[in-house]
């Protein structure tokens, strides 16, 4: 029996690795995802291109503009002469924010009257726009507060107003709030799932499509041996990818790994049974590789989007949140982020691992039953 499983595994390995491009793809895919999620996937907002239209040009108006620049979030793209130019810049996306100060701004501020200013934000990217408005509000608020405090000090004389409340925010588990510490561990989950899903589902369907399934059926191989031969090689490739991602993630990107490696890879194996099971199951539904590929993506896209990998589950509507409980990625992401960032152990993570175990057993049994029928 081991002999036959071994032969089958060797055959699968040869088929996948025979093509040097395939080897490239298997190891390039995790690298691309790592680079993108390590460097590019950031929702931090910096270098906001800003058009300044200052018709006042007094020390006060210049001070306000200077405060925007000094904050480090804003880059003055151009000093626009009039509103038409502001419109032109915003239309072309050459400025995301326009800071418009009219004549009389400085005089109002000096005279103790309320000075007006206008901020125009390009709302196309609603997320960035909200953050930009927040920054701008903080800067004008600080300036306003300072002018107010000076005025109050003059008016109140000896009486001292209360100092107010000061909020000191502290972040746990990811002290510098680096996006990559959130994403890079998640890449372990998405890549291993994708690679094992595609390889398994297409490996079985290929035999059917090019007619070699009949040849397999006349060999003494049993259904269990067939399944083992069709899944173990890809599980190995998945684990290989995971090792690669963990190494690059910790050594190159400096993502902290605070928990136990044994727990990490132990739960990866449980997770892989689900991924392989789904891959096998898809293969039993499909006749051609085209169908297998499309079905795989039909499963994989929602699985990624609903897993909390990029979009927090807590923000989804209630019925969709229930749906996410069916998503194996959801559980594995909690485990992997917990192990990496929080150093969480089995005591906290056992419900997630148990859920994956149940899913894996269920989907594997289902797929194996269907395969037994086609082989018998």
């Amino acid at each position: 029996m081991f002999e036959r499983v071994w032969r089958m595994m060797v055959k699968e390995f040869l088929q996948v690795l025979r093509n040097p491009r395939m080897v490239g793809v298997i190891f390039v895919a995790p690298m691309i995802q790592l680079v993108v999620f390590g460097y590019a996937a950031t929702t931090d907002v910096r270098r906001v291109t800003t058009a300044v239209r200052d018709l006042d040009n007094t020390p006060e108006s210049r001070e306000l503009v200077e405060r925007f620049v000094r904050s480090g979030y804003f880059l003055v793209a151009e000093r626009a002469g009039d509103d038409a130019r502001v419109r032109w810049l915003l239309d072309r996306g050459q400025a995301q924010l326009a800071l418009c100060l009219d004549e009389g701004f400085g005089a109002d501020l000096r005279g103790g009257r309320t000075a007006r200013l206008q901020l125009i934000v390009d709302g196309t990217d609603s997320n960035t726009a909200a953050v930009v408005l927040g920054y701008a509000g903080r800067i004008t608020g600080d300036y306003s507060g300072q002018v107010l405090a000076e005025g109050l000090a003059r008016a109140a004389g000896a009486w001292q107003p209360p100092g107010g409340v000061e909020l000191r925010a502290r972040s746990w588990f990811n002290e510098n709030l680096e996006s990559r510490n959130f994403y890079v561990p998640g890449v372990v989950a998405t890549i291993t799932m994708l690679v094992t899903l595609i390889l398994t589902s297409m490996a079985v369907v290929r035999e059917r499509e090019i007619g070699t399934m009949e040849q397999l059926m006349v060999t003494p191989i049993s259904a269990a041996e067939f399944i083992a031969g069709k899944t173990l090689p890809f599980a190995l490739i998945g684990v290989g990818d995971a090792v690669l991602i963990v190494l690059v993630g910790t050594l190159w990107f400096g993502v902290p790994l605070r928990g136990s490696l044994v727990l990490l890879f132990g739960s990866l194996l449980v997770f892989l049974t689900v991924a392989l099971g789904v891959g096998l199951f898809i293969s039993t539904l499909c006749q051609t590789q085209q169908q297998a590929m499309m079905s795989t993506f039909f499963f994989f896209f929602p699985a990624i989007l609903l897993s909390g990998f990029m979009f927090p589950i807590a923000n989804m509507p209630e019925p969709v949140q229930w749906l996410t409980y069916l998503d194996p990625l959801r559980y594995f992401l909690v485990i992997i982020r917990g192990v990496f960032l929080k150093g969480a152990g089995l005591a906290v993570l056992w419900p997630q691992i148990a859920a994956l175990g149940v899913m894996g057993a269920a989907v594997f049994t289902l797929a194996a039953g269907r395969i037994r029928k086609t082989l018998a």
Partner: protein
Amino acid sequence: MSLRRLWAVARKEFLHVRRDARSLGMGIAMPVLLLCLFGWALTLDVDRVPLVVWDQCGSQSSRDLAAELAGSRYFALRGRAGSYAEIERAIDRREALGALVIPPDFDRRLWTGRGAPVQLIVDGSDANTATIASGYAQAAVRGYSQGVVLREIRRAGLRPPAPPLDPRARVWFNEDLTGRNYIIPGLIAVIMMVIAALLTALTVAREWERGTMEQLVSTPLKGPELVLGKLLPYFAIGMFDVLLAVLMGAFLFGVPMRGSLALLFAMAAVFLAGALSLGMLFSIVTRSQLLASQMAMVLTFLPAFLLSGLMYAIPNMPAGIRAVTYLVPARYFVHLLRGIYLKGVGLEVLAPEAALLAAFSAAMIALAMRKFRKKLT
């Protein structure tokens, strides 16, 4: 090139598509599914952040402060904690994303000029949510603080001065900052890239793997005729998907369409031709369905999703990655779609992107035709 032969290939390919109803169905269901997910379920907005409070002071003012936070729509109070260990447990179990810690001397210090510090602890694992949540907390606490100061000024018999600055913020192009208006137009580009590659990446490789290519080789069919003929049916499916996406955007999600529909469909056709040819190029070069599907995944979906500016704004990326995004055709189409949809601008503004997109498509079609060899090896 003979139109008759080209049409014959197109007809054969169309029959293939029609016979495989499952693949065709998924080619249409996939865009609908993605649009629904992004339109209804997925958002990076942050609200109702679950919070626990550790109130060590227990005074009227500390309760007011907690109530101020609880009253904002951005936070939801999920109970109290009595120690840092309890806070940690709540965060570990993901019952809370953060905690407000009010020190015992809060009330006493509030009324002195020194000011009273309070602590906000956030679970930083999700950096985006944590940043936004602490921004909201800052704003809520500042509001409470100003209220206290103003009340005291009035109580001291002084007239509170006028606020020195009155910033009026106006948002252009997407007035109420709806994330959907931003995502849906860009998503059309990504969906087309994905669908196009899914549909064509296997077409030529399939003929090689099944051995039917030999039959095609023995016909008088020329390379360009085969490539274009195979593209046609998928082009029709792709344009149908665009139409579906535009209709869903308008009627289901209420995304404003301010520019020219004709320009939108024209650009979609250009982009689609390029994306389909790219998928076919994988198929031609690899001659293996498995490899072609993997390459399509790595070289089209991932960049289109992550580097096109769909979800992560390109200006925020580091310079090296920003340079790479210029090689992602979806980037130009995402920009075009947002310009047409939200800003209502036309070619006078979008000409550079339109030209680059056309260049991409022309190059892909030419490359697919050149690389296709009607020869058995």
